[in-house]
């Protein structure tokens, strides 16, 4: 893979191309569409990432420092197992939510590329 040096940033034309034919990435990431996309993605993903890390790390804290999960939940299936099964459900549900939401982002990316990059 070859590493390309960034072109001159001063050229400012409609299609965000620098003189060497490379897109002007500094300007592209400052476009409203790109900023919107990043903001939307961050807003969507942050709560999920924090949630799954939090829920995941809460398990060893609860089992390691307390015994509340040792109580029986259903029959002799303890809350420890219920929590762990809950983690599986969480992974599957978050995965499906991510996929569904990503389709929106795909459309945004297509529009953005169509508008700002000459094909």
């Amino acid at each position, binding site marked *: 893979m070859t*590493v390309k040096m960034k072109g001159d940033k001063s050229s400012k034309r409609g299609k965000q191309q620098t003189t060497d034919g490379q897109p002007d990435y500094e300007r592209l990431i400052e476009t409203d569409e790109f900023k919107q996309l990043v903001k939307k993605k961050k807003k969507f*993903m942050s709560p999920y990432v924090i949630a799954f890390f939090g829920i995941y790390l809460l398990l060893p*804290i609860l*089992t390691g420092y307390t015994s509340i999960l040792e109580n029986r939940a259903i*029959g002799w*299936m*303890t809350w420890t197992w219920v929590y*762990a099964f809950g983690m*599986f459900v969480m992974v599957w549900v978050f995965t499906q939510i991510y996929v569904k939401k990503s389709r929106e982002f795909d459309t945004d990316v297509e529009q953005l590329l169509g508008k700002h990059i000459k094909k």
Partner: protein
Amino acid sequence: MGFMSYAIFFAVIILTLYITYWAAKQTRTASEFYTAGGSLTGWQNGMAIAGDYLSAASFLGIAGAISLNGFDGFYYSVGWLTAYLVVLFLIAEPLRNLGKYTMADMIGSRFGAKKVRGAAALNTITIVLFYMLAQLVGAGALIKLLFGIPYWISVLIVGIMMMIYVLFGGMTATSWVQIIKAILLMVGTIVISFLVLMKFNFNFIGMFDLMRDATPHGESFLHSGVVYKDPIGLISVLLALVLGTAGLPHILMRFFTVKDAKTARSSVVYAVWIIGIFYVMTIFLGFGAAKFVGRDAIVAENSAGNMAAPMLAGVLGGDMLESFVAAVAFATILAVVAGLVLSGASAIAHDIYAEIIKKGKVTEKQQVRAARYAAIGVSVVSILLALGSEKLNVAFLVSLAFCIAASANVPTILFTIYWRKFNTTGAVASMLTGLITALVLVAVSPNVINPVEGAAFFVGEPLFPFVNPAIISIPAGFIAAIIGTYTGAKRAEAAEVAYAEVRFKAETGYREA
């Protein structure tokens, strides 16, 4: 083991060799060798990810751990599955958008300096060797037990098979071996789980009641804490499990075998469902083995419990099922080690030879030839190491590999994508600090120095208390990245690509023609 086991065993060998023959005909360019030309579909790559990921540690290791230690064994299932949320949300798509053949390509898309690529390649090779050693030693012991073949011949069989797949069939053969393995593993596990549930009269809740007095642990079998008595030690293991996957080079490499980020995403989704369903079933494997094989019988065969699943199959379905499960275990190991050889070979031939030594000026022919030599090299070195390690307890090397991946690779991967200020110094500092911290701490941990005679290489008091150093080494990797970035060169180094370009490409998948 009778005729049946040999028949299935040879069927696996012949089928995979035929696939390799077919794949060899379409493996000519470097892209075909490393990534199957990016031609895989979402479901194919999803199955292959599952086949690449579910190693002997998952199939034999977790089943054994649950059967001996109850819930504490199941932590591995929970951690290794949750890890895919990290991959899906943070890594898979930007990785596919920025990289070409290897993990180092993705980091190199921003930091062109040789030392960055060199450090990434060093991490890949270290992880591959540790992971591989654990698999090969396990495979040797397993085949020796199942078929009565001497250890050294078993290691040679597995070692030569993996070399043939990669050498001739590259990523195409490796992927299909992994897909077939995933199917075999799922079928085998579903059959055993069904039989276990039948024995429990399909009473899932009642099963827990029966497990209460099935083992010497009594009720503790159903709680956390049989093995992990120290919560900090437990958290350390769980951190390595959840973050490590996102830094495993042989898993990351799989995302380059599809055409774009959308397909990479859909392959994670298939993988998450397959891997998740598999890990749910590890409960039936573990509980079933504890109840119907019994702790004493399991430990008598292998003290770590690695024979629990095949033994359970024998108890439930007789020789026929045991033979089938043995063949599944064999295919499981083959698929994983093939992925590891390919990943190690790509680090040597692509990252070190083609990019660092030849500065990218190599022809397709030279690249493929270098990759093939590297595949032979990686295979031969691993076989030799495995032959010398028969008597060593190397099972901990798998979790060490996850720990190195999490500490040495993940901070750099995340910061390359998401942190504007991150620079060459930060990347090198992070990768080396993560690697060295993990290695040094393990070298003075209970895995290596143990007061119990025979439990580790040396007898004595360990200097570091936890079996897994992730709780120290992961923060060390992140902190080194930050310190390195702030103390490093104030001006961007010549070989750095502006963050704007990396960020734009990571988010949009745009590539210059």
